[in-house]
């Protein structure tokens, strides 16, 4: 089987799920005849028609709310944010209405919100965001952020089949930069399970999305130059978080570096740190360190963006300090 990109893997998942279940339909801005800003939904309308591939007005709150209503009735909407940055326009719908629906009203909301996320692409402050932490705090939502093409496909299929609302973050830097052969058959990756991207014994890097690749590159360099054996844990799902996998890697290496592309204060790294503190403090040989973006809106110009976002050199430098502690 031929290798396909991360973006093509997402598209393949959409085609397969729409074929499998007639309740699955897509909504979003410019996703129909145009195929979406990144062409993720290219060909979908030609095959399934404009009833099931709906071009929406510019109304994130409107069509996310509509997705909720349709999902109550047994439909399985997959909503595209043209850029995930625009998800904030639907924050009220997602956090107040959708996330609480099952709990307060016993109304299921099996829907997926997906969209291109993340930086390293010179997108500036409104086309580069990683808003996962804004939703991590909301019980009732699930959050998925895959780093590989096969995970992108398998997790999107799992998200569409999940009976609860799932936010599916796609890293746009990875869209066309990574390729992989898809596992044969109906490839579904369970939500809530992390993946060891690289085995190691001296220290652990816990990360997700594009920085998985930065961490792997750093691990390679640390092994070559320092003889360090670095484990990389790719979380894949942020909510629910795979505590077992996190604790297991802590117990294995006793040193933890958390890396994420999102800003630092109130970021996912803080939550992971607290969980390790509560459940495996005595297993630590060093303080937990983190490499993140600086606490600034993401600037556009290449020298600025590169300065703000985590780079391989940052991970290497902090890992060395951690190993030497």
């Amino acid at each position, binding site marked *: 089987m031929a290798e396909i990109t991360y973006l093509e893997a997402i598209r393949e998942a959409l085609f397969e799920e729409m074929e499998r279940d007639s309740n699955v*339909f897509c909504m979003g801005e410019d996703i129909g005849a145009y195929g979406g800003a990144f062409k993720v939904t290219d060909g979908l309308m030609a095959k399934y028609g404009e*009833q*099931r591939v*709906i071009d*929406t*007005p510019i*109304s994130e*709150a*409107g*069509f*996310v*709310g*509509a*997705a*909720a*209503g*349709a*999902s*109550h*009735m*047994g*439909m399985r*909407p997959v909503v595209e944010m043209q850029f995930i940055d625009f998800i904030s326009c639907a924050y*009220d*719908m997602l956090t*107040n*209405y959708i996330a*609480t629906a*099952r*709990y*307060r*009203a*016993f*109304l*299921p909301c099996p829907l997926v919100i997906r969209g291109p996320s993340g930086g390293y692409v010179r997108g500036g402050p409104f086309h580069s965001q990683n808003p996962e932490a804004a939703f991590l705090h909301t*019980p*009732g939502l*699930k959050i998925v952020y895959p780093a590989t093409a096969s995970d992108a496909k398998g997790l999107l299929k799992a998200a569409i089949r*999940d*009976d*609860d609302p799932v936010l599916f973050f796609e890293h746009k830097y990875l869209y066309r930069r990574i390729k992989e052969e898809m596992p044969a058959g109906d490839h579904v990756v369970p939500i809530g399970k992390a993946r060891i991207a690289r085995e190691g014994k001296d220290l652990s890097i816990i990360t997700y999305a594009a920085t998985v690749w930065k961490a792997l590159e750093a691990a390679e360099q640390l092994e070559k130059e320092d003889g360090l054996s670095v484990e990389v844990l790719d979380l894949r799902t942020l909510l*629910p978080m795979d505590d077992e996998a996190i604790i297991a890697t802590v117990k294995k290496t006793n040193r933890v570096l958390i890396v994420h592309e999102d800003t630092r204060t109130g970021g996912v790294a803080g939550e992971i740190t607290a969980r390790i503190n509560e459940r495996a403090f005595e297993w630590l040989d060093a303080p937990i360190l983190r490499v993140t973006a600086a606490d600034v809106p993401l600037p556009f110009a290449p020298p600025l963006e590169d300065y703000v976002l985590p780079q391989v050199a940052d991970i290497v430098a902090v890992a060395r300090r951690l190993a030497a502690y």
Partner: protein
Amino acid sequence: MATRTASRAPSRPSDALSLEKKVELYYWMRLTRSLEERLVNLYRQTKVVGGLFRSLGQEADAVGSAFALDRAAGDILSPLIRNLGSMLVQGAQPLEIIRQYMAKGDSPTRGRELNIHFGDPARGFIGQISHLGDMVPVMAGVTLSFKMRGEKRVGLVYVGDGATSTGAFHEGINFAAVQRCPLVVIVENNGYAYSTPNTKQSAVKEFKDKAMAYGIPGVRADGIDVLATYVATHEAVARARRGDGVTLVELMTYRRKGHAEHDNQSYVPTGEIERWEKDNDPVDRYVRVLLEELQVERKELDAIDARVKQEIDDATDLAEQSPPAEPTDALNGVYAQPASVEPLWYRAGIRSAVEQHERAAGWGTFNG
């Protein structure tokens, strides 16, 4: 009972309704009003937990509009806080309402949500949230699903004059209009959003004119007149069912009580409430129609009043016996999977967090 027709009634668009149906409208309005009066008693006895929201003066627009839906066809509405009457018409039970207000463990939300914030799509109503306007996009989606599946069902969503200012109202009604969803949007114009009068809410004189911006029909009807409300809504429902899309129906009414029981209505001009009560009470007005135009006998209405009282008495007795909410049930049902959230470690094995529940302070600024 055989179908009767009133001998000397003037010709009205509501003549399509049988006399039985017209009498039934009285039952729903009376049930709404009497149930709320019972809730006021329970509130004063401190048996209601949280705020109490009245629809005094608005019973006709709630009942008349909901009555225009076809329950057998599976039509669904989403009520607002002053649409107790709409929910009763769709099948909500007085017992459920009282249990909700008393925060009982066997209330429809098992103590998760307050007052009339609950729903049951099988009976044709979906519960609201407090964020006004949000149910418009949700009902756009509910009715989108009807359209996608080729079902001849209609949805109806209530907003107040205030909610027409929200982004969600605009985005939802615009989306529904573009998709030609079978949706009726009722704007209940009761003059006030909490304390804010319409003049500070919007520069439009008539909220029905907002329909123009969405390319849909906008109509206005007397929301104090249950038959006029029924007729206007029924036309909009028929349009939706034909596949002709969304209609905005503005129902003119008046909120005689405050935002909630605590609200002393200090912002209302002197005499305004009394004028509406005296000249334009929906129940009084409809009783006159029934007795004078439709030749219904007084004793028939008295019998309905007695039946309503009995139903509310029975419901109150049952609700009083209901158990309180089970504390650890708070951890269930956030997700389908996992079905429960783990208790925090320091709560493991503990069922009750405090020895005595504190009574919540009143909301807002009631000063007698």
